């Protein structure tokens, strides 16, 4: 947390957003579509990073927040026929409430116990989705009907299934969340979080209520992840239990570690990297997971703090 002038980081982030916007005009169709998906999932990773990167709490259960948003939004459309904005809000609210409950329980623990407790709650959430299969579609999942995925704003209506609208919505979501995280990280509250990460006892002695600070962080993190899930359901039209499985709890951890924990842009870089490694290698060999595995190990050997984390450490100390 260097006290550099705020101009540089904000300029960088605006630059990234402008670059992503410009890319939407030049990218070939396929990469255009893929990048829209990556931006939505990068939001998931940013939510994870809030807690893991800045507070140092390693959760293995964030798939439940993502899928709370996914199901909250998706089922509201499917069963209740809600409009897109209402369903989106419902998804976010589901995630926030779940995060509050889980936070109150899980924050009684710390370290590895926190990791296991969150993993088990996520497992419960996953099983609950399977148990109520008549509403959730169980493991098969459900399709959010295409006609319902239209955003009506006054007299104009935006079809969320059109690639341009989808890209723009994903970018808007990504940008808003990016700027919010940047603001949080640079705020006084953000510094308290880092202080908790570095030394919780000392922070407590300095008079901070670490529990409620951490609880807020869990809720913020869960809400961001749920936002990503809700957007995923509405933009891509499918809700399914595989998004609640432990694999989807490990993925954001992986993305964040690859990109650089506690860096605001790291989640995007990590998600982007992982997607393209899989996409490119699967074009050359059917044994692509082997190459992905080797790539991960090489990366971590040479960039132990993740891509951006290592860059910050070596060259650009001011990176937020």
């Amino acid at each position, binding site marked *: 947390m260097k006290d550099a002038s705020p101009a540089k980081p904000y300029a960088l982030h605006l630059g990234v957003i402008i670059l992503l916007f410009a890319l939407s005009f030049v990218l070939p169709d396929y990469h255009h579509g893929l990048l829209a998906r990556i931006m939505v999932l990068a939001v998931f990773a940013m939510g994870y990073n809030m807690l893991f990167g800045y507070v140092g709490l390693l959760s293995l259960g964030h798939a439940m927040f993502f899928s709370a948003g996914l199901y909250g939004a998706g089922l509201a459309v499917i069963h209740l026929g809600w409009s897109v904005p209402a369903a989106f809000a419902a998804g976010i609210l589901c995630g926030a409430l779940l995060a509050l409950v889980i936070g109150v*329980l*899980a924050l*009684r*623990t*710390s*370290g*590895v*116990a926190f*990791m*296991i*407790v969150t*993993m*088990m*709650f996520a*497992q*419960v959430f996953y*099983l*609950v989705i*399977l*148990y109520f299969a008549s509403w959730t579609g169980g493991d098969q999942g459900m399709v959010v009907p295409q006609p319902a995925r239209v955003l009506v704003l006054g007299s104009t209506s935006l079809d969320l299934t059109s690639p341009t609208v989808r890209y723009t919505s994903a970018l808007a979501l990504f940008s808003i969340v990016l700027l919010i995280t940047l603001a949080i990280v640079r705020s006084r509250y953000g510094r308290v979080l880092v202080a908790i990460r570095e030394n919780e006892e000392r922070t407590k002695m300095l008079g901070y209520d670490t529990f409620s600070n951490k609880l807020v962080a869990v809720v913020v993190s869960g809400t961001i992840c749920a936002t990503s899930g809700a957007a995923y359901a509405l933009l891509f039209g499918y809700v399914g239990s595989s998004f609640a499985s*432990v694999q989807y709890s*490990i993925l954001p*951890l*992986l993305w964040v*570690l*690859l990109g650089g*924990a506690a860096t605001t842009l790291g989640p995007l870089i990590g998600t982007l990297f992982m997607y393209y490694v899989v996409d490119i290698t699967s074009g050359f060999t059917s*044994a*692509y*997971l*082997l190459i*992905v*595995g*080797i*790539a*991960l*190990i090489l*990366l*971590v*050997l040479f960039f*132990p703090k993740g891509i951006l984390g290592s860059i910050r450490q070596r060259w650009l100390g001011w990176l937020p």
Partner: protein
Amino acid sequence: MAFGPHLLLAALEGLVTSAVLALTALGLSLVFGVMRVVNVAHGEFFMLGAVLAWAISTAISGHPALGFLAALVLAPLIVGAIALVAERLVLRRLNYNPEATIVATIGMLYIIQQLALTFYGPGARPVEPPFSYRILLPWFGYSGYKLSIIAASAFLLLATWFVLTRTKIGLIMRATQYDSETAQAFGIPVDRVYAGVFALGAMLAAVAAVLIVPISQAHYLMGQDPLLLSFIVVIIGGLGSLRGTLVAAVLIGLSDGIISVFFSPTLAKIIATLLVAMVLVFRPQGLFGTASR
């Protein structure tokens, strides 16, 4: 079936689960406890043990027991060697940094899974049990081999306990676990202890897999559940507590079996998982753990 026998059957099943779980979790507990690294690839070492058991037992003709015994000896050794290489090549170079090792072991997980898929294939393959004696109870039949798993696991756990508490190797390991810097200062080759512990942890997982493979086949994706359950067992038991790991394994194995008697299966899983999670919420250091370190 009457309630009593039903409960007996569920308890037997739970004990078999516990026996295998205890071995796998003990391996993870050593790695986790001594080295403080989260080994996400632990389940893949388990899977490798099962796959190698299939390969070895099909390569050896004659009585099934021959192939099985060969697998019981060879598979863990091979897996241990692989783990040793992985530790030297990767983990040591990362200085056992907790975050970096997570990524690295996820990488190992992908590599091992892909190699198994490529060379072993996507199918589930059975290994013939060394003997197939069916114990006939008044209410139902039960596999004699399954009961022998409980005995074998108990023996191996005792042996591990003996090594850890009654030998010099165990003393060195415990010293490293307690305070690796001080251990280093006292001339303990911490570096080599780590390598040994990592290999030993993988071997325990492999042994557990060889034991279970005659009743549940070898499959390249079989590593995930043991991994998750082992993590749960290690933490519930209390980090670094051998006794805790054992008790937690029995508790989780039995509760899984017995709760299924009373509730519909998926609901039973939900309740069992929630109960165990609550244990941790109200006792974060685990059942037998000392206060947080």
